[in-house]
């Protein structure tokens, strides 16, 4: 305990390159995996929510039903098993079963694939929830102006669903930063794997684990701050600029419909008179 501080300092001064390299790999893997996982999730969520009308033809109904079953199985399988075993099955199992035909050229590719598929399974449910959380009135509004299902989804529903599931995406990113630590099992040298390597040679387990703790915490806190900012940005500004043709009009938020037809005629006359005056002013300026 006495040399706890000095041990940490020693480890950092000697192995900082390895630690930093691990941090970089962890963060890149988590970011890429989460991004692709989100894409998979959006695709699944989108396919799952294609509406089936009673009058649709049986072939379409059959394929939609089949699609739902396939997605269901995918979600249950990858959400219901530990990622560490999925990594083992994909990285070691695939070559074993196929007799070496399907083999990963790099641990990078395997790690990336595993994280993406795993995140996709979680995101499929989040996206489905996000789509369900958007007011059905939004869909009706879009349909009522003649949008197809695809247009309704891409311009109206998904942008709102995306905003609603941003906290979920953040959750997944942070979980991925931590859970990529199981990738040592396939020999991918992320942050935690570096720790194992360093401890193997120095035998300073607890000081190194402290560096790991600090490193993971910094990564997750920074990500969560950035995600909050992104959410704020998506919400947009609370104020908006009123657009007035006449810069002297009162804009204190009391603007109302300009009244009955008679009122409008009177207003139009006044406006015409104002414009006539304006033109005269301009022409005199032009004469000079």
């Amino acid at each position, binding site marked *: 305990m006495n040399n706890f501080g000095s041990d940490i300092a020693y480890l950092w001064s000697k192995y900082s390159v390895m630690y930093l390299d691990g941090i970089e790999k962890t963060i890149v893997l988590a970011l890429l995996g989460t991004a692709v996982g989100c894409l998979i999730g959006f695709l699944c969520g989108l396919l799952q929510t294609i509406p089936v009308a009673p009058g649709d033809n049986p072939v379409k109904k059959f394929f939609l039903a089949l699609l739902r079953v396939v997605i269901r199985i995918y979600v249950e399988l990858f959400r219901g098993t530990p990622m560490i075993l999925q990594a083992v099955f994909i990285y070691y199992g695939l070559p074993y079963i196929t007799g070496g035909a399907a083999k990963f050229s790099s641990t990078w590719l395997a790690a990336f694939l595993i994280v993406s598929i795993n995140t996709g399974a979680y995101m499929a449910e989040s996206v489905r929830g996000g789509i369900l959380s958007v007011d059905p009135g939004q869909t009706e509004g879009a349909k*009522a102006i003649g*949008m197809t299902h695809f247009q309704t989804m891409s311009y109206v529903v998904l942008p709102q669903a995306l905003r609603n599931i941003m906290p979920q995406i953040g959750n997944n990113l942070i979980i991925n930063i931590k859970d990529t630590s199981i990738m040592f099992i396939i020999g991918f040298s992320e942050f935690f794997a570096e720790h194992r390597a360093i401890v193997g040679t120095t035998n300073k387990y607890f000081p190194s684990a402290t560096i790991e703790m600090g490193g993971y915490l910094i990564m997750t806190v920074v990500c969560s701050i950035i995600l909050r900012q992104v959410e704020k940005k998506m919400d947009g500004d609370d104020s908006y600029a009123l657009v007035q*043709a006449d810069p002297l009009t009162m804009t204190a938020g009391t603007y*109302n419909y300009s009244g009955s037809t008679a009122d409008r005629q009177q207003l139009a006359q006044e406006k015409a008179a104002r414009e006539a005056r304006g033109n005269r002013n301009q022409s005199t300026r032009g004469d000079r």
Partner: protein
Amino acid sequence: MGELILQVGHLSKTFGKNEVLKDIDFTVAKGDVTSIIGASGSGKSTLLRCINLLETPTSGEILYHGKNIQAGGMSEAAYRAKVGMVFQSFNLFSNMSVLGNCTVGQCKVLKKSKMDAAKSALQYLDKVGMTPYQNAKPRQLSGGQKQRVAIARALAMDPEVLLFDEPTSALDPEMVGEVLEVMRALADEGMTMLVVTHEMAFARDVSSQVVFMKNGVICEQGGPDKILGAPEKEETKEFLSRFFNR
């Protein structure tokens, strides 16, 4: 009477075991302003939603310029683009600005250029008095303002018929006037409109045809003076007396 735009024939709709609409027949001609009145639960809104195919009718047909739209003569989307709808709860796209709400349909459905879409959107926003708010988001507007934007959004698609589903029912009393005023102006310009409403004064003054519905059937229909002034059916009299003696 102008050219027939919509013909509804033997339209029925059931939800589970509930028969909400029974054998509805009526027509909408160009320039007509039809008010549909009746107690809550009488099937008024369902009828409107069936006409726009937001609900699929259980049986019966809807002819648009003589073409049966469910038989596949035209796509649902193309038909809906021609038949605008204004909802009780506005249903403005909350991820877009006021201007975005009025241009997205023109750009994506009618394939207009952004410039053209914005130009005509501004023209319609001006008509409903909402031009100053073009950059605002729906959540920043009052109910009456939202509904006026919703009307502009529907108009921007250049529809042949506009359906209004209780457009003022979700509004505070002081905002009802501004929306009715816009609708009145539209009617004056000859817009074909189908309005489900509880505003009897509006139905009386603006519409050319009034339809009274009860328990999923059209009980009585005719000119506003007849239906609202001298109804023949007992049901209509009873409904109106309850309405006027509130």
